[in-house]
């Protein structure tokens, strides 16, 4: 079971080996992640998906990557050259760095050196991920800004607003985990999820689940939402809403390896948030329940496999969501982030903290706090609920009124709507069908 003390003793060459392995792993994960996504989503849509390059189309992404490398490297004439070139770098590098604190497994012997299967760990490891996510935002802003194109600027601004909004909800959803774990170090958080502890109700002793995803369901659900928002994935992929913004902030990165880098950064970010969700909520590299009965499951190199399986499952979830859900509207997206996730999160944090304080101190102060939180939350909820209800009704009425005035008066700007009781609506028209194009 590694803890913070196990880190910082690696010789440099071990660090280099681990860094190279993680780097190669991520590059391959991007290549095959794209393939998996396309294959999976096409299966969900009753298509074949890529199946030309290599067996099962496995080499499709490799071919795409090569093709991008061989395309003309366009730098539009109006762009701010330096920022335009730097932006993809700022996007990519932090995404990779975030992976350095994701634990893949316990301490193993690597070329005779005892070392944990994790590049490094910090007392503030999770903060590093958040910091890197914030740095990545600069890449988005600068890419949009440097492009000097309306689509790119709008896309960049939207993307930034979205990412920073969801970053808050994401950061808040971790707090409950830290309350339980008492540390920000990822390896120790994984360790804390090892034993579930027990709950005593009378004489009954019930073993508690150990994953924070189950112990702290609200936090986990919020995290799942924010992880979709943070990575600009469906249903929150508005920055790339091709119907309105072409390709968002990377409109002007039309071909070549710069676009490949941006694409890669997006996928690496998906793997980062997936890896983080596994580490913080899904037990990390530790084997899930039936497998964990086998003693060797959490030792040696096996945990790599469990981690990888979990990663594939979480990534599969991303794809599944993409296949299943439509894109939301931008105001809905921001409303969800600011008006639902943040207040919910804060109230949930306070509730968790109060119950945790109740375990050590059953004094009146804690109960008062509990009462304040519950009553305050309920009051706010009902206030806004009724306010929203009233607003919705007023809005519906207004629309109804508009509709009525406009329906009768095309001159006022209403649509010339044909009367709703025309005979052909009811299948009684007699004329023969007119083929298209004959006019």
């Amino acid at each position, binding site marked *: 079971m590694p803890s913070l003390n196990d880190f910082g003793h690696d010789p440099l060459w071990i660090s280099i080996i681990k860094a190279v392995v993680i780097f190669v792993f991520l590059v391959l994960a991007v290549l095959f992640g794209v393939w998996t996504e396309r294959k999976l989503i096409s299966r969900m849509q009753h298509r074949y998906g890529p199946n030309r390059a290599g067996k099962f189309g496995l080499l499709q992404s490799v071919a795409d990557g090569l093709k991008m490398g061989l395309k003309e490297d366009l730098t*539009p004439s109006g762009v701010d050259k330096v920022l335009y070139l730097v932006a993809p770098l700022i996007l990519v590098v932090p995404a990779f760095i975030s992976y350095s604190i994701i634990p893949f497994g316990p301490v193993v012997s690597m070329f005779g050196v005892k070392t944990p299967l994790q590049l*490094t760990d*910090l007392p503030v490891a999770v903060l590093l991920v958040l910091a890197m996510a914030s740095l990545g935002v600069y890449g988005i802003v600068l890419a949009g800004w440097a492009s000097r194109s309306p*689509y790119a*600027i709008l896309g960049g601004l939207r993307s930034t607003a979205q990412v920073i909004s969801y970053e808050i909800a994401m950061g808040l959803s971790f707090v409950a985990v830290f309350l339980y774990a*008492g540390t920000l170090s990822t390896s120790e958080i994984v360790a804390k999820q090892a034993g579930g502890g027990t709950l005593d109700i009378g004489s009954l002793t019930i073993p508690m689940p150990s994953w924070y995803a189950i112990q702290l369901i609200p936090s986990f659900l919020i995290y799942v939402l924010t992880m979709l928002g943070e990575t600009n994935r469906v249903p929150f992929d508005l920055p790339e809403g091709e119907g309105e913004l072409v390709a968002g902030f990377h*409109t002007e990165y039309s071909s070549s*390896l710069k676009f490949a880098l941006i694409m890669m950064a997006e996928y690496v970010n998906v793997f980062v948030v997936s890896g983080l969700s596994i580490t913080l909520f899904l037990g990390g590299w530790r084997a899930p329940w039936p497998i964990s009965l086998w003693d060797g499951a959490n030792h040696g190199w096996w945990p790599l496999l469990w981690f990888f399986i979990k990663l594939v499952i979480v990534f599969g979830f991303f794809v599944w969501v993409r296949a299943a859900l439509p894109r939301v509207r931008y105001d809905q997206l921001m409303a969800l982030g600011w008006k639902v996730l943040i207040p919910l999160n804060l109230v949930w944090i306070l509730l968790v*903290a109060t119950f945790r304080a109740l375990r*050590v101190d059953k004094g009146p102060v804690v109960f008062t706090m509990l009462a304040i939180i519950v009553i305050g939350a309920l009051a706010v909820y009902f206030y806004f609920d009724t306010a929203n209800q009233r607003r919705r009704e007023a809005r519906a009425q207004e629309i109804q009124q508009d509709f009525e005035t406009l329906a009768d008066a095309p001159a006022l700007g209403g649509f010339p709507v044909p009367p709703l009781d025309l005979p052909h609506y009811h299948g009684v028209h007699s004329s023969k069908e007119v083929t298209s194009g004959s006019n």
Partner: protein
Amino acid sequence: MELYVPILVLAVLAAGFAVFSVGIAPFTGPKRWNRAKLDAYECGIEPTPQPIGGGRFPLKYMITAMLFIVFDIEIIFLYPWAVTFDKLGVFGLVEMVLFIVTVLVAYAYVWRRRGLDWD
């Protein structure tokens, strides 16, 4: 400090890869100059002239950015509090309830003044 060295290694690796990709791109592809190709893409219409140094952008985004700072700082206060919560006990709880309520006052103000609405 040793804890941070591996991060540096990975950063150098990633940065090297990225710089290499950006740097090699002009040499691997063909070069066929065409004025229209170098214009900003606006679905085929004449590109809108963009002011040098960037133009004005909707104030909404700045409000969002400022709110982000407020809440981000709140998060930064919450993390150490959460980590040491068991040591702080009731005192920590009371203080944090007060702090969050104070932030929520500003949040309620912004909400009521429609600072969170997008149209």
